[in-house]
């Protein structure tokens, strides 16, 4: 298509390109501003700031900070939320793609996605007054009685369950509910992208529908499902308000799920506006910087994996 440029076209094109580049620059700008905003913290604490430690030292008054309790809280709650949400989300995706009658598909899809539309403060409010007393506290007491004595994982369930119910466990469960829409929507797309031939070939060989799903579809879409998990993980890492409202916001030595904790996002939400010293502010910005990098890496990796399933050529399927 040969183009005849008319007056104004060149400046229109230049405008579009400038704006597009600006949108891209925005991402770099976020990273850059956070890096600059936390320069004092890098200089004071170096990499040791992020290192795992058993000592709890977060002391705004004496300007001594280490980020490990928050990193631990964020990673633990997000990973356990994924463990809970993944089977449920896969179940939803399989049900929607393989079993659901056509008239029910759209309403069900929308209802699951509405879970993502409810504002996270509303989750938090419901969490504090309903979910904690009705579900989390009884569940926590039960877990403390049954699992606390197991080797290895027992440490995660050592009691006593916190009295109000505010605990890492509560954060895990709320996060799981909040990331189900993400994981199920992406894995549904992944299942839909799998060529029908795979499906039909397996059924023609005499497999039951479940065997087809388990032995053919899931392995075929595995990297896409992994991508879905990473997108969900990214959401869980950055989720702030609901977690802040139910996790208890306390720094204590215990590693247990049944005790109150803190996450990276929630410490920023709680302390930033009232930071005591310049260093305190900078340290919180550095926590934000780490969070930014973690979610950005996860997102890039996840998009790449999902994109690979969608792009897998028909040629590859034939051979």
């Amino acid at each position, binding site marked *: 298509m040969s183009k005849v440029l008319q007056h104004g076209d060149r400046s229109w094109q230049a405008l579009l390109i400038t704006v*597009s580049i600006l949108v891209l620059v925005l991402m770099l700008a*976020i990273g850059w501003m956070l890096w600059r905003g936390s320069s004092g913290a890098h200089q004071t604490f170096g990499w040791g700031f992020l290192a795992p430690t058993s000592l709890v030292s977060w002391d705004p008054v004496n300007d001594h900070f280490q980020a490990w309790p928050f990193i631990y809280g964020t990673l633990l709650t997000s990973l356990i939320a994924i463990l809970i949400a993944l089977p*449920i989300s896969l*179940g939803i995706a399989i049900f929607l793609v393989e079993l659901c009658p056509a008239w029910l598909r759209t309403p069900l899809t929308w209802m699951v996605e509405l879970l993502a539309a409810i*504002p996270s403060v509303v989750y938090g409010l*419901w969490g504090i007054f309903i979910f904690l007393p009705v579900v989390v506290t009884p569940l926590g007491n039960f877990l403390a009685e049954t699992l606390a004595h197991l080797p290895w994982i027992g440490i995660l369930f050592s009691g006593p369950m916190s009295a109000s119910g505010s605990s890492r466990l509560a954060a895990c469960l709320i996060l799981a509910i909040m990331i189900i829409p993400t994981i199920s929507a992406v894995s549904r797309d992944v299942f839909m992208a799998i060529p029908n031939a795979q499906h039909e070939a397996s059924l023609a060989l005499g497999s039951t529908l479940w065997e087809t799903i388990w032995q053919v579809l899931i392995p075929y879409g595995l990297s896409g499902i992994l991508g879905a998990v990473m997108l969900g993980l990214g959401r869980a890492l*950055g989720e702030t308000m609901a977690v802040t409202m139910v996790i208890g916001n306390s720094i204590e030595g215990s590693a247990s799920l049944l005790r109150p904790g803190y996450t990276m996002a929630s410490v920023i939400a709680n302390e930033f506006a009232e930071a005591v010293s310049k260093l305190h502010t900078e340290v919180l910005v550095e926590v934000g910087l780490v969070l930014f990098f973690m979610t950005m890496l996860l997102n890039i990796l996840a998009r790449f994996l999902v994109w690979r399933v969608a792009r897998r050529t028909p040629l590859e399927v034939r051979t």
Partner: protein
Amino acid sequence: MTHQGELLGQRRLARERTRRVSNMVMLIMTGLLTLIALIPLAWIIAYVILRGGRSLNLAFFTQLPRPLGMAGGGVLHAIEGTIIVSLLAAVFAIPPGVLAAFYAARNPNTTLGIALRFGTDVLSGVPSIVVGLFAYAVLVKPMGHYSALAGGAALAVLMLPTIIRTTEEMLKLVPHTLREGSLALGASEWKTSLSVLFPAALNGIFTGFLLALSRAAGETAPLLFTTLGNERYDIKFIVTSGIKSHQGIFQVLERILDQPVDSLPLTLWKYAQQPYPERIEQAWGVALVLMLVVLSINIASRLWIQVRARRLKGS
């Protein structure tokens, strides 16, 4: 021999039965898991409606908060703040979002086009609290104070990916014939874009904006240290006092936009942590209003996008 054969046959039958049973069990399981996921949805919506409905009345929408510990009063300040901050976010996010979408829709395979799509995907994954920190560093700190402007900018960053993506999809749905017709008549590229493509896709673009807004309006984290909160915010008072003291329109606008404001989610968060039962009850009311606004915008815009997409595809 025959005995062994029978035994084999029986084993095979048994295996067949296990396969069939496990098939049924697992398939039923997927249905059950779907139901389980919907329990919290129903529970939250039903409970918020029941509990929040009790604290809604006229004063709730028309009055400022009473002093702590006193019953009555409303959340007018937060409603006004939410509207102001959302409008600002729209003003900041729509123009660049639509222009970038024009580029992405026209040049999907150039390096910049691919980078743009990838970039918006990644941008949509940046945690909202991090965007809040960014807006604080870029706007609040240099300006020296918290303001509605900074909050609007933070929300705009969050809305940008959704606006770019839906606008791009809608522009792609506009039939080629329209574009080519316009170009064939001698219109220039930019004129075609603005006076043919844009109006044809306008409905879709607007709904994309609403969808983005429904997400941004429920956000709290980016407002915590950009708009901060302001229980005395009252637009009516600002305007009337401005008129009385003969302030110009820009001075009044400045007083509306350039000071800390509250928003519904921010108010909800603060009220939920206070030990006063009246405030907790009001928090449920705020939750109800917020949820209804966000969910109805969300559902309506999705419905509308579907209808539009079908109509554009059909023509």
